[in-house]
């Protein structure tokens, strides 16, 4: 089956975020394919490159990044939701160099909601977290 995943919870919700990650890993292990992982709402915080990891905290970011790399996935981040939370990609930062700096980098791509809708049309199941 073809799945798409919509994540709306902040990665600070470690329990839910690792639950989502485990779900994605299980999908792959069971031979399903993941069409797209779309981060929306507070979920976009996962893409924030401008952060310091406390050694005491569970590094959920790294776990996700490892998963994206292993599976060669290009997760999408909603541009509007990201901008609302002070997160920008290269192109947007280049348009407003005085005001903002980029803090979203590969493997994340900035996307519009249209891409979420498109993912829905190409997937058998959409699973939401958050």
């Amino acid at each position: 089956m073809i799945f798409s995943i919509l994540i709306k919870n902040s990665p600070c919700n470690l329990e839910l975020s690792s639950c989502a990650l485990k779900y994605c890993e299980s999908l792959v292990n069971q031979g399903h394919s993941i069409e797209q992982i779309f981060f929306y709402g507070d979920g976009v915080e996962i893409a924030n490159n401008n952060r310091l990891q406390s050694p005491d905290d569970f590094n959920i970011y790294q776990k996700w990044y490892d998963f994206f790399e292993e599976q060669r996935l290009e997760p999408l981040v909603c541009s509007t939701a990201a901008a609302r939370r002070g997160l920008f990609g290269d192109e947007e930062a280049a348009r407003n160099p005085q005001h903002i700096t980029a803090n979203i980098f590969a493997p994340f791509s900035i996307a519009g909601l249209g891409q979420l809708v498109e993912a829905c049309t190409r997937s058998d199941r959409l699973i939401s977290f958050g």
Partner: protein
Amino acid sequence: MSTPKKNLLFIFKSTPYGGMASQEAFDAIVSATIFEQNACALFIDDGVFQLIKGQQPNFRASQAKQLSSLPFYDLEKIYACKRSVQARDIKTQNFCLDAELLSQEQIFDLIHCQDHILSF
């Protein structure tokens, strides 16, 4: 878009100003209609508060005003959970748009015939 149309149900279950969920639900359903999907909206739980007209929020655009634009996006299938509306003593005359009240059973049926559900 050449891909087949899907039945998408957007569930609005949050209060209008308790966070960005109501705004983000609105943005998402508008995108779905722009991309010509069969979208419908269901207001349930505290989400029914979004439907009350005459909202005067201080820090954001009125959610009711935004929602009342949905028919202009050709979105006509708008539903509200009867039980949630009654439990909060909201009168349908105070709704900002025409929403059909559904019983629990009708909601089960509605959910059953969807391809995907997005809940906010």
